[in-house]
């Protein structure tokens, strides 16, 4: 009783703080920095309070429920915080709180007048994400989902004066609404006219036919997949993330995509109770395709935030690989490996939230310091922004799945789950599928490492490639302070994965009742200790043999004085991979040389290489043409004559009267 009381208070406290954080900055007139400070501090406080509530929900055996009254006749707005919701709530609040803190410094680059509007949208956005995972009613869920989409739309179009930003915002809102159509269809198909609450849906799901259930699943996969950025529904991500301010991208990529994962799990695993093995197989296949294509496209990008956006596609793919494996195990009635696979997928959810928001915030710091996101213009930042460099490198190592950081810890669990799929020996098909998915995951990891060597190496190492990069300085303390906890978490979650994995096994156990799951002992702490010990003893050895004593000299430049133009660029770094995957990427290059006397003595070369977006050309452009041509045909019924419209209303009325008679 005590705990429930406390949780209720925490819930209202969080709600009020978020609402205050949204509304109060708007009421301040000409406050200078005051609206921003208010918005950020209240947002951070609300985030911390929500984090406590989420952690309590994750660990408490009994779900926390709270009724807030009826919003529509028959539609009760109530909060239901079970372990699954608690986990997602904690992840969301952790990232939004730290991003609020970071924004205190970062929003300084925008005009002060606009920050109140930003604070309003941002806090409303954070609140709506929290509510999405907490409500237990499909109507309320859809309302919160829509609120989340709208708030994030206004955040994406924050710099609406640029046409590019408006276009990105448009692509975002169109794609997510297309997704929402599928989500609504999925919910309505699942409800079949019964109650609106999730409990009612779950009760009625048993009586649905197999085809109807599969239809619900497919609609949910498409709808939530659009929000999550599953290939080929990902096209809004790489344009929306660079358009939004970096702190917003961090939250959108770090946690908003995860609400789609939550929705998929809630609807497909919790409400429908899983399905045949091909459902899981489809999720696994979607995951593999997203992971591999996401990282290949990421490697081609030179805009730091577009690059990170494609990595979100990749990581959503990795999460889906874990969930897909779990769903296959449930279909085979093997709850123990199923729970481990689901826990692995969820573990990657929090890990991706931590390292991806760290990287986006790092990209924001670079933008803050240099005014550019193009890594071809950067270089040498490790000397000018040493602390940001360490923080960004931590994120880069984590996302490349390198031990002892957290990306490795969760990808390790996903490897084990995929191997368990093979080792279950259900059929040759699934044995092969498991090992092939492992190979795809290895490919993804190797390409991600290549991509982050490129991203970190080109932007932070060697010589600055532009004046802007040469003049960069370390950004304000608040920005670094927002990133440090994330970097520490990258290491802590990598060294002690049990801290999160054990409760996550509990979450999976709640979704699919089975025997009590005890995870096998993990070696991660030992491995980290081993690495630390070896490195320490080698450092001592190297110190004994002369240590850092070294002569400094200029890099060898074949007899010429080296300068920034001799460095490898991002484009040249990714060229070998671009050439290998040229059938997919279809690069087109244009080279214009100018020379004197002899073609070997160039004095200027213009080089441009573009890759074709296969999905845009073969999927979206034909789809758009089709939609436009169909709409053109139908336009004739909209002639603007009021008598005709009155006629339509009359006909509709008559038809309806006949229908209800």
């Amino acid at each position: 009783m005590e705990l429930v009381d406390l949780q209720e208070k925490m819930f209202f406290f969080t709600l009020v703080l978020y609402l205050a954080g949204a509304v109060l900055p708007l009421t301040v007139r000409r406050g200078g920095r005051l609206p921003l400070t208010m918005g950020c501090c209240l947002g951070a406080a609300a985030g911390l309070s929500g984090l406590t509530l989420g952690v309590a929900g994750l660990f408490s055996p009994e779900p926390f429920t709270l009724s807030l009254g009826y919003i529509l006749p028959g539609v009760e707005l109530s909060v239901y915080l079970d372990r699954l919701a608690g986990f997602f709530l904690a992840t969301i609040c952790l990232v939004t709180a730290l991003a609020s803190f970071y924004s205190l410094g970062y929003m300084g680059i925008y005009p002060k007048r606009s920050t109140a509007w930003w604070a309003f949208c941002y806090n409303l956005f954070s609140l709506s994400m929290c509510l999405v995972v907490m409500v237990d009613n499909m109507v309320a869920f859809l309302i919160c989902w829509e609120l989340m989409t709208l708030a994030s739309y206004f955040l994406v179009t924050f710099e609406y004066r640029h046409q590019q930003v408006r276009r990105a915002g448009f692509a975002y809102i169109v794609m997510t609404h297309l997704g929402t159509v599928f989500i609504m269809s999925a919910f309505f198909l699942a409800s079949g006219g019964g109650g609106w609450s999730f409990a009612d849906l779950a009760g009625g799901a048993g009586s649905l036919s197999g085809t109807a259930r599969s239809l619900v699943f497919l609609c949910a996969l498409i709808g939530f997949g659009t929000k999550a950025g599953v290939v080929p529904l990902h096209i809004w991500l790489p344009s929306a993330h660079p358009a939004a301010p970096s702190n917003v991208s961090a939250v959108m990529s770090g946690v908003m995509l995860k609400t789609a994962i939550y929705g998929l799990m809630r609807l497909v695993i919790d409400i429908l109770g899983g399905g045949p093995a091909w459902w899981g197989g489809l999720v696994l296949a979607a995951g593999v395709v997203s992971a591999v294509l996401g990282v290949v496209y990421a490697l081609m990008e030179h805009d730091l935030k577009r690059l990170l956006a494609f990595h979100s596609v990749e990581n959503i793919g990795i999460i889906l690989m874990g969930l897909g494996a779990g769903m296959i195990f449930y279909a085979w009635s093997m709850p123990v490996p199923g729970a481990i696979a689901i826990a692995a997928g969820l573990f990657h959810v929090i890990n991706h939230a931590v390292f991806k928001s760290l990287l986006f915030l790092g990209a924001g710091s670079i933008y803050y310091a240099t005014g550019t996101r193009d890594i071809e213009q950067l270089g040498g930042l490790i000397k000018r922004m040493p602390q940001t460099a360490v923080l960004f490198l931590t994120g880069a190592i984590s996302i490349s799945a390198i031990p002892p950081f957290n990306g490795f810890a969760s990808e390790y669990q996903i490897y084990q789950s995929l191997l368990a799929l093979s080792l279950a020996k259900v059929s040759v098909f699934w044995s092969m599928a498991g090992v092939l998915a492992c190979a795809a995951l290895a490919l993804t990891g190797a390409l991600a490492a290549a991509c982050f060597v490129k991203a970190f190496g080109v932007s932070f190492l060697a010589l600055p490639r532009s004046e802007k990069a040469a003049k960069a300085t370390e950004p304000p303390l608040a920005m670094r302070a927002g990133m440090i906890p994330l970097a520490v978490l990258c290491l802590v979650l990598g060294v002690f994965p049990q801290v999160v994995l054990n409760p996550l096994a509990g979450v999976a156990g709640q979704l699919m009742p089975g025997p009590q799951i005890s995870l096998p002992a993990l070696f991660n702490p030992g491995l980290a200790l081993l690495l630390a010990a070896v490195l320490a003893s080698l450092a001592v050895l190297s110190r004994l043999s002369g240590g850092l004593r070294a002569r400094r000299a200029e890099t060898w430049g074949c007899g010429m004085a080296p300068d920034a133009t001799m460095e490898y660029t991002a484009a040249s770094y990714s060229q070998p991979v671009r050439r290998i995957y040229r059938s997919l990427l279809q690069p087109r290059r244009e080279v214009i040389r100018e020379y004197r006397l002899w073609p070997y003595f160039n004095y200027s070369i213009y080089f441009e290489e573009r890759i074709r977006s296969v999905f845009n050309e073969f999927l979206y452009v034909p789809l758009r043409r089709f939609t436009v041509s169909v709409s053109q045909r139908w336009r004739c019924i909209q002639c603007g004559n009021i008598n005709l419209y009155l006629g339509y209303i009359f006909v509709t009325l008559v038809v309806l009267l006949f229908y209800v008679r």
Partner: protein
Amino acid sequence: MTGSVLSAGGQMVFLMLLAPLVNGVIKKAKALTQCRRGPGVLQPYFDILKFLRRDPVVSVHTSWVTQLTPLVCLGAYLAAGSLIPLWGSQGVALGDLIALIYLFALARFFLALAALEPGSAFGGMGSSREMMITSLVEPVLVLGLFGLVLAAGSTDLGVLAGAGRNPAGVLAFIGLMIVTVAETGRIPVDNPDTHLELTMVHEAMLLEYAGRQLGFLHWAAMIKQLVLLVLLVHLFWPQPTGIPVAAALGLLAAKVTALGLVLAMIESVLAKMRLFRLPELMAGGASFCLLAVLANSLLK
């Protein structure tokens, strides 16, 4: 716990001491097949000692990444090597096959970064090519190794001892041998003996290193080669149990040297391949590994 720490530590010292010898033997064998006299088999020890005595010259554009990388490389390969149970069981498992693969990735990540740091085009070229080759090699490596995991039922390196001793193992061995050639930077993938800019991958990344740091990196590369060979021996040609440690070590050294001679033979009879022909070579390796996976899933 103390026992396993001592055992892991001893294993690392063993790897550090044996690695130059194996490299020397391979070099000698290559020289003999090419009708040269070649340096003595102990030459790599002298080279390392010479490097370790010299202070490095580092580029003015570098930072702590360049300083740290030699230690990280050496440390990661040693840690990876200590995971393979060479003398019976280890007590506390500090990692498994997947950890071993990813410790290699740790070393590679830092080396590729350090190659970019001096700002020379050669380092960038080597770094970019290395990461490209890795993206081809890694899936094949995982396919080959996980095919054996299917046979053994676990990723635990102790359980995996001798996992390749079945008909499907022959296929996996061929696939993994191709991977080993690529990972050790040998012909036809890379050439360890030249700094010629058209062919170099691994050597290009070390180009700006000198003195003590270069010695560490060369040593690390030799240890990486040895760890891969030891892993192959462990999987396909396991050590007998219950023999004295000294005998086990001698036997292991003999087996590893035998495998090294195979590498030397491959290097002597083949020509360097064009960089963009590598996908074909790796596709070949992948097919062998895939057949091994198929055979293992059909057999059980």
